[in-house]
């Protein structure tokens, strides 16, 4: 208490000082003027007119006029975003019309950073400002974060093709084992996604990349922060505008997985000597495929065609019983020319997005409203994402010094597929061997999409017993099931705030904001009859609902004053955040009717189950402050500190302090550079800071817990088949765990050169220490989940380079080009037990995270050719069990004369050497053209799909052309690519090896847009003020040596830190042809 009194005393002193300084006023006269833009000669509304050396200033009104008190000799600085600031010495009371020239520089832009705004030129740390106009041209596919790809140096975005599938965003590379996604701050509200924003609503995006800039977000900021501000009404007459596009998406053409023809499949079975298969499904000899396959009660086989029994009256036996699969007698006609499964699943699909906005402002209030409708159909049949959106942003100046306002966004999302944050929901499961996409390369080409009924699906069941047709599923049938499923999301996000100016230099800001997400989903399935393993079962239903909510309560007081050449801003704040939620799920089987309006959990007759739970509530409290000091626009210093307390940790570990300091030196203001005419502006900066991250730990981590769940704790102790609840330790607690700590240094250069270039360069080094890991405890502790503990360090260093060039030829032709390059190097500095194996697949682990290596490297055997006949008899050639002539020869890495586990080594790295984005744009008179390119260099992909298609001995199923024509021992092959095709498996075919690793550097032309803006004079006659139409090609070109679908891969079934593994991915590089318009009334 005493301490706080003292604090109060100090505050009072500062207040008194401030009062005094504001009394310095002398005799004044009124000075007036009008500001217009050099481009359109229209009044500039909201331009700042400031008396140099003071903080006295006004803003121009709706007619561009201003009035302020001053006297002759005062120097006025007139500035507005996008225009070059003008300095005028007052010589008369009416300054007349002042024209501001359009700037090529964006330095005067005001950017919103942590809890306040700064001019771009005063930035002292690594903050990237995204050009929203450019970025918006990338169709989002329902995931708005996609627009960040290639738009800012230091930001890596992996997009997904699945409608609404989300994007993986990393700032300066992968940071940890778990959640590496940045924090999103939308209109001051912290949340976990930007993906459902309407891109048209976005005013600006800033990306805080270094600890110097994001330390002010403390424990939430460690992975970097994306700060988004949505639009406000702009002064002037109210406008109504309509933005829309319509397009079509076209899946990749050709034989994308290089699958054999049915005749080729038959030849391959003979080549591999797999009698148990070829006798059953290719009885007529190599290259033949019978006419029909059938299976029913007690009967199965093939019929018709060479070697097979005659068809006879077989077709008359066809029977399909939807209620009891045991009665099914299914017959399919083999597709002799081969089913193109990929294109049976992927078809051209439309997309459209419409946004209507209304906005306006007067000197007191402004408003912005928008309605949006997105309908993103997926190229995979039956997939889509629809979103209905509404936004209302308003601001009211209710007194001269008091403003209130709100931002409010509501959307309703609809999709047949689950999103990962909804518990209990399956969905499409991209990048998974059992998903429809993966089944397009697993299911044999002779299987038809539909069986002889024409309406029921063909599949692996309809053939001889056993599973010579493989155990893949009919992917179209799988996707067909999604028709019955839906997932609905209702989300409200935004905030309400009030801002009070007091004592001249103080502004208090209070904001209550948050996010409220409600979801509901329902799934229905009918008994599968077309797949080998699941033939049988009953229909069933699964539905559930839940909510997540969080609030942010933020209070800040800002003090800002200019003393001569000293410009000081200080801010203190308090913030409280709270998260909670609940969910419920129910399921059951055996519905009498499959009519969708009858399907519900009341009507299920078997296995009715219900579960629910609470999302562990998390509370966070924080105190923070920042100090900005600028001397003479030349030396800029910023310091921040935040103290965070989080309920996630045990008392004693809950509080942490995160400081940062950064400084910049505007070297171009120094006398020795002032005369260098080609330097418009140059600033050197350095920052250091510390932040934290705690999302990779559960809120109950500190506690040892017991549970008594049905499947794990119940036991029929009475012996009568009725289970009784028992308890078991479910979690071990650790009271010492605390957050991951991110410390980093950034040195940067911002320069404006030759009037046309803007250059930003950053070098950084960042260490993430005390990584949160589930403690790796031995099983001697039983089955309880170990707690997360702080173990292991990761170091990232790299460079961000951004160059922008803008110029014009005359007034009619303007052009710009921007290039940004992201270079990061990630290295694991320490880990418990030195390494972690990851990405468990059917055959083995693919990834090893090891000290001294980057996160995510591929680990396996190095293929060193094939065993020759001579090798097989030479005892000095190290071999593994089951090796035969033509098997992969693995390198004996440790030279011990045998091939064992210990010979595995690092065989590839999914981390790119660098990624880059290129934005090009030009306008000529009414035409404009722009292009966005995105590339990645030096990344490798582990093509797991080849396990299924290139090795005969993996599961029965579709195989590749290479297996037949490029394998060891195949007729005419002298320089084999693949090992001998055989149904015998050995380490040569079942282990992770360098065979699967390929260079996956790519360059994608993401977008080319050609627009035409109609002459305002002409359209004015029909009531419009602006009309632009455009055509656009998205992803017209992907240049890569990678042979799979798309070299850009989201994480698969492993964890987020295991990436670059292709298990069959919904491609995000599909061509799209779009027409669109921007219309303003």
């Amino acid at each position, binding site marked *: 208490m005493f301490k706080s009194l003292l604090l109060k005393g100090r505050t009072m002193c500062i207040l008194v000082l401030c009062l005094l300084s504001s009394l310095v006023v002398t005799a004044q006269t009124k000075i007036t003027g009008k500001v217009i833009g050099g481009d359109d000669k229209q009044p500039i509304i909201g331009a700042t007119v400031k008396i140099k050396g003071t903080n006295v200033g006004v803003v121009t009104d709706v007619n561009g006029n201003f009035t302020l008190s001053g006297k002759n000799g005062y120097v006025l600085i007139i500035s507005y975003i996008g225009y070059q600031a003008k300095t005028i010495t007052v010589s008369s009371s009416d300054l007349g019309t002042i024209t501001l020239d359009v700037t090529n520089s964006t330095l005067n832009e005001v950017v919103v950073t942590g809890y306040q705004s700064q001019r771009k030129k005063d930035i002292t740390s690594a903050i990237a400002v995204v050009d929203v106009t450019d970025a918006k041209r990338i169709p989002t596919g329902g995931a708005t974060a996609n627009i960040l790809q290639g738009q800012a140096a230091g930001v890596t975005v992996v997009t997904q093709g699945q409608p609404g599938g989300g994007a993986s965003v990393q700032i300066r590379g992968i940071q940890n084992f778990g959640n590496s996604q940045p924090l999103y701050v939308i209109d001051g509200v912290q949340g976990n996604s930007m993906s459902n924003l309407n891109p048209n609503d976005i005013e600006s995006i800033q990306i805080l990349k270094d600890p110097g800039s994001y330390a002010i977000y403390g424990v939430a900021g460690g992975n970097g922060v994306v700060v988004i501000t949505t639009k406000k009404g702009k002064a002037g007459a109210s406008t109504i505008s309509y933005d829309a596009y319509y397009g079509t998406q076209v899946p990749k053409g050709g034989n994308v997985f290089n699958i054999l023809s049915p005749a080729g499949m038959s030849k391959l079975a003979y080549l591999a000597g797999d009698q*148990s298969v070829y006798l059953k499904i290719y009885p007529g000899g190599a290259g033949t495929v019978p006419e029909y396959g059938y299976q029913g009660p007690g009967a199965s086989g093939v019929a018709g065609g060479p070697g097979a029994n005659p068809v006879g009256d077989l077709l008359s036996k066809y029977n399909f019983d939807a209620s009891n699969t045991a009665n099914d007698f299914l017959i399919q006609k083999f597709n002799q020319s081969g089913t193109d499964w990929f294109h049976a699943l992927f078809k051209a699909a439309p997309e459209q997005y419409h946004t209507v906005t209304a906005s306006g402002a007067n000197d007191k209030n402004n408003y912005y409203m928008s309605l949006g409708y997105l309908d993103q159909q997926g190229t995979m049949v039956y997939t889509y994402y629809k979103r209905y959106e509404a936004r209302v942003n308003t601001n009211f100046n209710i007194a001269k010094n008091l403003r209130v306002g709100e931002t409010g966004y509501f959307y309703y999302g609809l999709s047949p597929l689950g999103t990962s944050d909804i518990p209990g929901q399956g969905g499409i499961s991209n990048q998974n061997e059992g998903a429809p996409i993966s089944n397009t390369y697993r299911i044999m080409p002779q299987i038809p999409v539909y069986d002889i009924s024409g309406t029921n699906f063909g599949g692996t069941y309809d053939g001889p017993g056993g599973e010579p047709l493989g155990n893949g599923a009919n992917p179209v049938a799988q996707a067909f099931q999604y028709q019955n499923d839906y997932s609905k999301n209702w989300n409200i996000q935004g905030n309400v705030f009030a801002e009070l100016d007091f004592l001249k230099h103080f502004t208090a800001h209070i904001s209550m904001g948050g996010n409220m997400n409600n979801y509901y989903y329902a799934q229905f399935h009918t008994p599968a009859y077309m797949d080998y393993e699941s033939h049988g079962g009953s229909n069933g239903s699964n539905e559930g609902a839940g909510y997540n909510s969080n609030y942010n309560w933020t209070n800040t007081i800002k003090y800002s004053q200019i003393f001569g050449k000293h410009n000081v801003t200080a801010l203190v704040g308090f913030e409280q955040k709270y998260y909670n939620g609940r969910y419920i799920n129910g399921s059951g089987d055996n519905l009498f009717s499959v009519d969708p309006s009858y399907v519900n959990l009341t009507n299920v007759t078997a296995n009715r*189950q219900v579960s629910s739970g609470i999302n562990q509530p998390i509370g966070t409290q924080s105190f923070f402050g920042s100090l900005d000091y600028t001397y003479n626009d030349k030396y800029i210093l910023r310091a921040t500190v935040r103290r965070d307390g989080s309920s996630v940790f045990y008392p004693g570990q809950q509080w942490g302090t995160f400081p940062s300091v950064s400084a910049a030196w505007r070297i171009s203001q120094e006398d020795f550079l002032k005369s260098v005419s080609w330097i418009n502006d140059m600033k050197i900066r350095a920052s250091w800071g510390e932040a934290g991250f705690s999302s990779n730990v559960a809120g109950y981590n500190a506690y040892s817990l*017991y549970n008594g769940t049905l499947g794990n704790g*119940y036991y029929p102790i009475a012996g009568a088949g009725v289970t009784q609840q028992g308890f078991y330790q479910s979690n071990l607690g650790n009271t010492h765990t605390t957050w991951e700590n991110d410390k980093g240094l950034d040195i940067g250069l911002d320069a404006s050169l030759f009037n046309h270039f803007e250059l930003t360069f950053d070098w950084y080094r960042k260490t993430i220490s005390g990584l949160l890991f589930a403690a790796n405890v*031995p099983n*001697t502790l*039983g089955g309880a989940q170990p707690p997360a503990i702080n173990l292991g360090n990761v170091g990232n260093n790299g460079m961000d380079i951004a160059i922008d060039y803008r110029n014009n030829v005359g007034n009619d032709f303007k052009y710009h080009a921007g290039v940004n390059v992201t270079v990061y190097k990630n290295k694991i500095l320490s880990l418990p037990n030195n390494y972690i194996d990851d990405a468990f697949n059917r055959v083995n682990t693919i990834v090893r995270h090891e000290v001294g290596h980057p996160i995510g490297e591929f680990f396996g055997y190095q293929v060193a050719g094939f065993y020759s006949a001579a090798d097989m008899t030479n005892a000095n050639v190290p071999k593994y069990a089951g090796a035969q002539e033509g098997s992969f020869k693995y390198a004996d890495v440790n030279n011990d004369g045998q091939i064992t586990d210990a010979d595995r080594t690092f065989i590839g790295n999914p981390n790119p050497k660098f990624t880059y984005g290129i934005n090009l744009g030009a306008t000529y008179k009414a035409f404009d053209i722009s292009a966005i390119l995105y590339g990645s260099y030096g990344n490798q992909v582990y093509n797991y799909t080849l396990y299924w298609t290139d090795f005969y*001995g993996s599961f029965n199923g579709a195989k590749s052309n290479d297996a037949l024509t490029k394998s060891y021992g195949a007729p005419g092959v002298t320089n084999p690519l693949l090992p001998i095709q055989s149904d015998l498996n050995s380490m040569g075919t079942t282990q992770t090896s360098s065979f699967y690793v390929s260079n996956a550097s790519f360059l994608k032309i993401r977008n080319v847009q050609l627009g035409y803006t109609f002459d305002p004079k002409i359209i004015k006659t029909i009531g419009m003020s602006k009309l632009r139409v455009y055509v656009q090609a998205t992803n017209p070109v992907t240049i890569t040596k990678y042979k799979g679908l798309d070299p850009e891969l989201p994480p698969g079934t492993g964890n987020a830190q295991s990436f670059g593994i292709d298990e069959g991915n919904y491609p995000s590089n599909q061509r799209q042809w779009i027409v669109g318009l921007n219309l303003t009334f």
Partner: protein
Amino acid sequence: MKKSIFKFIIPLSLVFLTLSYSCKKFLNQPIANALVPSVLATKAGVDGLLIGAYAMLPMSGNPTTGDTWGGSVSNWHFGGIGSDDANKGSNPTDQPDAAAIMNHSVDGSNDYVRTKWWSCLDGVQRANDVLRELPLVKDGSISAEYAAEVTAEAKFLRGVFNLELSKVFRNVPYVDETITYSAGNYNVGNPGPIWDKVEKDLTDATGALPATQAQLGRANKYAAEAFLAKALMFDHKYTDALAALTDIMTNGVTDQGVHFALNANFNNNFDADMKNGPEAVFAVQMAVHDGSSGNNGNPGDILNFPAAGPTGCCGFYQPSFTLVNAFRVTAGGLPFINADGSLPLNDYDGNPIVAAVNGASPGNNSTLKSDQGVDATDSKYMPDQTTPVDPRLDWTAGRRGIPFIDYGIMPGASWARAQGDAGPYINMKNVYHQSSAATQSESYGGWAPGQASAMNYNMIRYSDILLMAAECQVEGGNQAAAEALVNQVRGRMVDHPENWVKGRLTGYTANDATKPIVDNTQNAANYVIARYTGQIAGGTKEFARQAVFYERRLELAMEGQRFFDLQRWDGTFGGPEPTGYMASVLNKAIATNTSYPAAYFSNGVMKNATFTAGRNEIYPIPTGQINVEHGALKQNAGYP
């Protein structure tokens, strides 16, 4: 104006101050969805922990310990396909971890090995949780008697889990209730077997447990004594084992106080409707339709159903040719055993069975005819109805042309998932009766229809007790007593021909393979079984041993015992047979099972397989555990 500003600042400052003092509460959010230890410090809590320890007995279904089936108490993997009982089943590439166990290329990275290890230790620690929680109960709800009872049950369970661990891995850590996360003493080594510790826990439990229990799932005195006997058998202490077994045979009763006895109907042991009968010395209780999605319904065996028929998946754990052929008997109804104890049957001599296509008789008359390579639609196929076989065969393995439990005639290849790779026979002992399918089975986890079942797994049934006692008698030189015990086991079948499989296939209606004509008054095959009449009592010691071993093989086939029996008998760890015995038995079986023409039976998993003596008798310690224990844990001999 200024006044009003102060009005604003002062309350704001107060708000700030208040907040900084209310932080503590805000930062201690309630723990969702779980219990903290103090809540369990009551009698009900302790009993709940004890039930939780029992709940680990299936050794599966624990989401934190990996695969549902990798640790299964039935030991279909480690005890079954790792021995000559069964093939893995399904396609050669399906479940590669199982394939590695089957062809003895298993190593410490194998996921089944990891899951088994973890499941057993999870059970040990759940039992320890009971012992740790007991002293925390201060509310007076627990009497000294109850505390003793609970302690004994916990020690029983700890003994059972440690015995299971020891069977599979032999050199294992002993984890008692002092080993905890907070104590930091969890890197427990495995300097050697812990039989003495297992025996101590089970001796304590035998001493303290009551003879009867109201709840039939709980261990009683004799269950504990039976596991003690089993541990002593693995420890090769035949005298001590015989004492315990004799006590069980003399005084042993079930939880209900019924004297242990063999069920008149052998199949009652594998009938979910007949569980907890007089033969069940200790059974892992299973239940379905309890809302757990099949998790309490023998989840460890969900793969082990025919690929058609009773369920649709997954065709694992198929009886091997060598096992089925072992059921052939002499015309007098006794197994083929030479006087010197060697086994004359040619299925051990590596002679292939020639394809019996389209009903033609097999090329070698001394092996049982099978439908290997015969299409399910073939309407001429007739099973072998003349070769004398032990009647237990058709309660152990599903064969074409013979009724499969109460599902009617087994139709052959259409029920085998990949007959060409894994053979024609279907496992049976974990399959519920069709008549009780509705009540005793349910879908497992939503993907395996009908594959969760309420059939108990008998960890020890009474015939096991009798046969262990017979072994002790042979080693103790009392072969007459051994013969009497073996005859007691055989007598059940000899005396109850009414319980042999009935339903002789006589043909097919209209040449339709789906319409068999069955004579239900006749035995399905030529069943012959008789008691020994002095052959054991008067035979060589080796003959007596092999006769007891052979009886175990037939009686307990497909119950996950075979591998561990061979391990016990091998001289490597002190067994009665020479060192290398297990390797010679299994390598002979490999030779037989891989000698068929590939078109007939490709058996890709076993190609080039060898059982290596001195290594494969026990399984490798999980490599991950060796790494995480920082040197405390050592790998078993022969494993890298």
